[in-house]
C-alpha cells in the first residue's frame, strides 16, 4: 500500500457506453434504455463530480464502471501502473459496513478476503486510519458510530483495497445537514492526501462543485453527457470559497446549462 502518492491511482476511459434494462410495460420486447452512449475520460488523481436529474442512470453508470453490472455496448478501461480495482462507496451507510465486525476489521475486510493474517491486516488498517487522521475507536462496532463516521470508514475500506478509482454514489445523502459539511471536508482532505481518482455523484450542485476538479452534467435517461465544466478553484477549499465570485459563476453556468437541457 503506497499511501503517500497517487502511484496506484488510475485513469478512466469510457467509450460509447450503453446499457438498457428489460422494459416494464406490457410489451415484453421493449427495453428501457438507461445509458445512451457515454464518452468520458478521467485523468489519474482527478476528482470528477456528476450531477443529473433523478433516475437518469447515475447509479447504473457507476455500477457498470465498477464492474457490478455488465454493459450492453461500449468499453470501460481503467489504466494504472498498479491497481485497477474500483472502490465503491454506497449511499446507504447503514448497510455498507458489516455490523458484526469491529470498526478496525471493517476497514481491514478487503485484506481478510485476500487472506492477510489478522494481526497484519489490523496493523495496516490502523496505519491507514492514522494516516487519514480518522479518529474512530478501533475496537468498537459500527452501530456506535455516527453516519458520517460510518461513511468515512467505508472510504477507508475502499482505500485499503488499493482502489485505483473511488466511486461514490451520493455518499452524503443519508447524512444530516451539519454532518454533511464535516464529512465533505474530510473527503477533500482524504483525497488531497491520497490523490485517488474519484468519481462522485451528488444531488447537491454546491457540494458537487466544491469538491470537484471538473463537473459533469448528465441528461435525463437515456443518459448522456450534456456538458463538462472545469472547476479551476484553488485548493484546499474551505467554506469561504462558496462565497467567491468564481464559485458563483461556475454554479450559475452549470444550473443554466442544466435547466436548458431539462426543458428540451
Amino acid at each position, binding site marked *: 500500500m503506497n499511501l503517500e502518492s497517487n502511484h496506484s491511482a488510475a485513469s478512466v476511459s469510457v467509450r460509447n457506453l450503453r446499457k438498457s434494462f428489460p422494459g416494464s410495460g406490457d410489451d415484453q420486447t421493449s427495453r428501457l434504455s438507461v445509458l445512451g452512449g457515454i464518452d468520458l475520460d478521467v485523468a489519474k488523481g482527478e476528482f470528477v463530480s456528476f450531477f443529473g436529474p433523478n433516475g437518469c442512470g447515475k447509479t447504473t453508470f457507476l455500477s457498470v464502471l*465498477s*464492474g*457490478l453490472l455488465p454493459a450492453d455496448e461500449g468499453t470501460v478501461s481503467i489504466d494504472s501502473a498498479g491497481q485497477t*480495482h*474500483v*472502490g*465503491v462507496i*454506497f449511499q*446507504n451507510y447503514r*448497510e*455498507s459496513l*458489516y*455490523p*458484526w*465486525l469491529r470498526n478496525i476489521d471493517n476497514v481491514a*475486510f*478487503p485484506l*481478510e*478476503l485476500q487472506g492477510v493474517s489478522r494481526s497484519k491486516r489490523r496493523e495496516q488498517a490502523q496505519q491507514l486510519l492514522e494516516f487519514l487522521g480518522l479518529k474512530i475507536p478501533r475496537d468498537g*462496532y*459500527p*452501530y*456506535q458510530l455516527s453516519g458520517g463516521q460510518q461513511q468515512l470508514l*467505508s472510504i477507508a*475500506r475502499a482505500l485499503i*483495497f488499493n482502489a485505483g478509482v473511488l466511486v461514490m454514489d451520493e455518499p452524503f445523502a443519508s447524512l444530516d445537514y451539519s454532518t454533511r459539511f464535516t464529512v465533505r471536508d474530510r473527503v477533500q482532505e482524504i483525497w488531497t492526501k491520497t490523490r485517488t481518482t474519484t468519481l462522485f455523484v451528488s444531488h447537491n450542485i454546491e457540494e458537487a462543485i466544491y469538491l470537484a476538479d471538473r463537473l459533469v452534467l448528465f441528461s435525463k435517461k437515456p443518459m448522456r453527457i450534456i456538458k463538462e465544466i472545469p472547476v479551476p478553484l484553488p485548493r484546499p477549499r474551505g467554506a469561504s470559497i462558496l462565497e467567491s465570485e468564481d464559485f458563483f459563476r461556475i454554479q450559475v453556468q452549470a444550473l443554466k446549462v442544466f435547466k436548458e437541457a431539462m426543458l428540451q
Partner: protein
Amino acid sequence: MKRGIPWGIIVLLALWCLLSFPKLIDPLYLPTPVAVLREFWASVSSGLLPRHAAATVYRLVVGFSAGALVGIPVGLLMGYSKRVYSALEALIEVLRAIPVIALFPLFLIFFGLGDRSKFIVAAWSSSLVILINTMYGVQHSSTVRRMVARSLKASEWQIFWKVVLPDALPEILVGLRTGVSIALIVVLMTEMFLGTQKGIGQMIYNAHLMYDTPTMYVGIIASGVVGYGLNLLLLTAQRKVIHWKGDFQNE
C-alpha cells in the same frame, strides 16, 4: 437490565392462595401452594423429579440439536440458491402442513417405543421452523452488503460465509428459540402417550391417572421451568452472538 415488579406472577400466586386455602375450588383440582411445594421437595429429595427432568431435557437436547443440524444447512441452501429453493419449496410446505401428531404412529412403527422415536419427533418439528427462519434470514440479508463484498472481489464462497451467514444469524437464532419451544411441547406429548418410564410428560400424565394432583402441578411447573431455562439460555447466547445489532442497549 433493570427489572420492574413482576405483577403478573404475584397476582397469579395471590389468586391461587385465595382460591385454594378457603377450598373455594375442590383441593382435588387445585391443591394449595403449600401442598404443591411439599410435594415438590419430596420429589426432589427422592430424586424422582431430577430423573424425570433429566430424561426430558436429554430427549429435548438430542432431538433439537438434530433438528438444528438439518434445519440450518438446508435453510441456508434454500435461502441462497434459487435452484435449491424451487426444488424443495413445495415439499417443505407440504411437510409443514402436516401436524406432527399425525406422524406419531408412523414414527412408532419405524423407530419403536424407545427414545429414538422421541428424538425423531422433536427433531422433525424443530427442524422445520429452524429451516424456515434460516431461509428467511438469508433471503432478507442485505443486498448492499453483498454488493460491497462483490465490489471488493470476494469469491462466491467468501460472500456466503463472511457476509450472508452472519447477516442471517439473528433470524437463525429466532428460529432456534422457536424450535426449542416446539421441541419441548412435542417431547412432553410423546412422553405422555408413547410408553416410557421417565420424563416430565410421563410424570404429569401418570399423576393425572392417579388423581395425584399435587404431583401433576409439580410436573407442570417443572416443564415450565425447563422451557424457561432453555429459552433463557438461548436468549443469552443471542445477546452474546448478535450484540453488534446494538438493539439490546435500552431493553
